């Protein structure tokens, strides 16, 4: 009888250890396929978008939801892969310290007491990520916030000593393998079998977000001549890009497979959609006073210039300044693309004093084709020296950095198209995948946006789901959309079967009322 009990015990244990098993379990690796691609060592190159930067800062949960990290988790379901590593910052506050001094601000969160007063504001915390605390080891995610195309080839871009002067990048300084290395060199040193490259955004974006404060460095190939807000020459961009891809994917390079991601139109981002060109509320008395102030300019000086043949009728009309009682008066601005008439105005028959002539020299009111950066919202309507007569955007025209004019937009669009042409050609030359992020973000920014299994994703600021609270970078959900598109492209290009990304399970903006 003892024996029988023993058998029962053995039998019972045998069955207990039988966990439920599916016929074709994902865990066992038989469901998906890497196809012709080899994801065993994936390295991502790029800028802030690749790093997982969001809400005006780099913070841990943002990095965890970076599109390369999402992709790596999918790749790991198709084959054996090395761990995907990221140069995680120290906290979820965001911001940077250099030698203990704050050099980058904490993240934006959505503050406010009610939905009516909800607004993005900097989180009230002190950054703890010290740039000079070097991380050891190499990192699969080589996304460096702020990097332009040519920065990936720039020695010393990760030298801590250069951060303070702007010669080096604080984010790369945290994990560069040496003072003189380049981003590309550190990526190549990892011998990636697969890569993604999303670079070039900042080559046009920083010009746009600065309201066109820089210049287009057309035909200038010496990048040391470039200011931070300048547009990279399109041919120089193509040369740099080709060099990057050649070393990663070329016969003489690593011969890795990969996907290139092109450059979205800057005008698709909420950064330029939030602040209207006509945000100025005026009562009847103020509007009247302002109209009186510009009366002589509108009715005598401008027609006079037309009479003299110095301005066309149309340009004169576009330079008129008029206000009305109501909430929707257009801002005034100095448009550098207008002919400067301040010299003429100081001469007969106008004989204006230099200060007034200077004010009117390139003055006009905004039109619906202008764009105002998000960052100018806190500037418009403020007064100069607390003088109620000197209101920025009204009696004091906005300077160049506060308006991206139609001419500036056209330049950005033209250069973006040139970059994308180069990227497409290079993708074809090296037989790489190409993700059209330009088209993707255009459809997100178009009416209604996109819909992922009942989850709407649009470019509406704060509530749209795609863009984080800085109006430029994406939310985890936005990055998931990008990752999903990359998966689609990989599956098509490399006959792979990588699972899709569940966009709806990725979050959007973070709500928190502890704000500055």
């Amino acid at each position, binding site marked *: 009888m003892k024996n029988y009990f023993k058998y029962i015990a053995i039998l019972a244990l045998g069955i207990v250890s039988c966990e439920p098993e599916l016929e074709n379990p994902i865990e066992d690796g038989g469901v998906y396929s890497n196809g012709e691609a080899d994801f065993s060592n994936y390295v991502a190159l790029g800028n802030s978008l690749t790093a997982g930067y969001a809400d005006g800062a780099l913070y841990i949960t943002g990095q965890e939801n970076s599109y390369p990290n999402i992709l790596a988790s999918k790749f790991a379901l198709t084959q054996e892969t090395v761990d995907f590593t990221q140069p995680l910052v120290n906290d979820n506050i965001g911001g940077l310290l250099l030698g203990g001094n704050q050099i980058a601000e904490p993240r934006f969160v959505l503050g406010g007491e009610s939905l009516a007063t909800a607004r993005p504001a900097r989180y009230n915390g002190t950054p703890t990520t010290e740039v000079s605390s070097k991380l050891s080891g190499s990192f699969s995610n080589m996304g460096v916030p702020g990097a332009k195309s040519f920065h990936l080839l720039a020695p010393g871009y990760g030298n801590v000593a250069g951060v303070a002067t702007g010669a080096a990048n604080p984010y790369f300084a945290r994990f560069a393998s040496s003072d003189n290395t380049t981003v590309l060199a550190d990526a190549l040193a990892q011998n990636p079998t697969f890569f993604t490259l999303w670079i070039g955004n900042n080559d046009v974006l920083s010009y746009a977000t600065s309201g066109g404060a820089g210049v287009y460095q057309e035909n200038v190939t010496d990048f040391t001549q470039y200011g931070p807000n300048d547009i990279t020459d399109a041919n120089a961009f193509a040369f740099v890009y080709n060099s990057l891809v050649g070393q990663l994917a070329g016969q003489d390079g690593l011969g890795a497979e990969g996907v290139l991601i092109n450059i979205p139109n800057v005008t698709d981002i909420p950064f330029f959609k939030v602040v209207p060109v006509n945000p100025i509320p005026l009562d009847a008395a103020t509007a009247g006073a302002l109209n009186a102030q510009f009366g002589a300019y509108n009715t005598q000086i401008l027609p006079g210039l037309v009479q003299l043949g110095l301005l066309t009728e149309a340009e004169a009309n576009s330079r008129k300044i008029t206000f009305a009682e109501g909430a929707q008066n257009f801002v005034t601005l100095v448009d550098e693309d207008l002919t400067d008439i301040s010299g003429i105005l100081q001469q007969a028959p106008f004989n204006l004093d230099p200060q007034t002539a200077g004010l009117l020299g390139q003055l006009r009111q905004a039109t619906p084709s202008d764009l105002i950066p998000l960052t100018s919202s806190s500037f418009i309507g403020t007064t100069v020296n607390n003088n109620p007569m000197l209101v920025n955007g009204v009696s004091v025209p906005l300077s160049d950095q506060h308006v991206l004019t139609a001419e500036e937009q056209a330049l950005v669009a033209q250069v973006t198209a040139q970059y994308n042409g180069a990227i497409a050609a290079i993708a074809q030359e090296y037989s790489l995948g190409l993700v059209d992020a330009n088209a993707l973000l255009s459809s997100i920014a178009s009416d209604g946006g996109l819909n992922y299994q009942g989850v709407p994703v649009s470019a509406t600021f704060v509530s749209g789901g795609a863009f984080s609270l800085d109006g430029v970078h994406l939310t985890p959900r936005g990055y998931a959309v990008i990752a999903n598109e990359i998966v689609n492209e990989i599956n098509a290009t490399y006959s792979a079967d990588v699972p899709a990304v569940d966009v*709806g399970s990725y979050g959007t903006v973070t709500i928190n009322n502890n704000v500055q």
Partner: protein
Amino acid sequence: MKKLFLLGLLILAGATTYAGGYRVSLQGQRGLAMGHTGVAVVNNAELAFFNPAGLVFLEDKINAAVGVSAVFSDVVWQNEEFGQSARTDSPVGTPFYAYFSYKLSDKFSVGLAAYTPYGSSVEWEKDWAGSHLINDISLSAIYVQALGSYKITENLSVGGGPIYVSGSVNFNRNLNRTLSDLEGNRANVTVDASGVSAWGWSAGAMWSPIDSLNIGVNYRSEIIVKAEDGDADFENTPDSPLTSFPDTTFDAELPLPAELTIGASYQLNDKWLFAFDYNRTFWGVYESLDVDFAAPGTPDSFNPREYEDSSIYRFGLQYTANDMFTLRAGYYFDESPVQSGYFAPETPRNDSNNFTGGLSVNVTDNVAIDASFLYSKFKEIDESYDYYQENGQNVPFEGTYKSSAFVPGLGVTIKI
């Protein structure tokens, strides 16, 4: 005898048991070993649950049966579209029973019973892909019942009595698929209520038209357990008046559905007994799990379930090997009350084939050890729960599920 024993083991090795929804059919090791039949089997004090009318037919003056089972039950889930997978790591459930009957006269017996016919214990990986539906649940209900059993004629009896239920529930889920605090910790809520009481009853009849044949019927009433002022504890919600989730109390109702059983047993000879039971569980009462939070700003939670009445078909046989050993085996088919599209991962049950077996060892004339086991075999199934809503839109939660359950049990029968 040895051969027979091995045969019993083989049947055992193919076995399974568990019921649809959160019904746990483990109310007696002897009955369970025979496919959880018993409405027409006069065997021991387990009749207090299966059919109190039969208590008066027990030969001895004092009858008692106690036992406990260990429920090893887990579920694995995966979604191939997104490459997501998860499996439960559920704690071992320990449903128990304790029955006692005392024969006051030849015609009348009284009894006491305590048993746990409903319960659930499911623990998914925290923040898994379905965490907006459930992270974990622990549900238990203890039934305590006073019984009378009266013999109307020599071959017809009735029995029954009032049931007192004490229930408790602890349930945790994330508030939705994405909400988290600044550090990325997912916002979640735990609702907890214990000592929730309710009343019900059961009654049965047993008829023995000929000596070798018993026919039984038993009905246990529906009991709605109403949790009032339970604790609702919100964790990791954003620090903002925009998403205010103060800890509060809640009201909720959970039905423990009625069950009707009819069945028969046939004593072929001294050695062999056959039994058949048919259960109808009136799950249709479980339409929705609604949680009403007391705090005015906290949105209530509505979770359609739309269970349907379901049937279980049970077959059992018993072989009395000798004075010492009795062997049992059984099978039942358990129809899930869960309808397609309402497959929620807190009770992910589809139809199951269940195999049981067991034995009794008469240690003395008065004391027997009863052992049983149950193996529930579920088919792999592609299912979804389609009624979770975000922003007014239904967001289905889909995937492939496979459950398993293995339940060994041990009990003691005493007759004096």
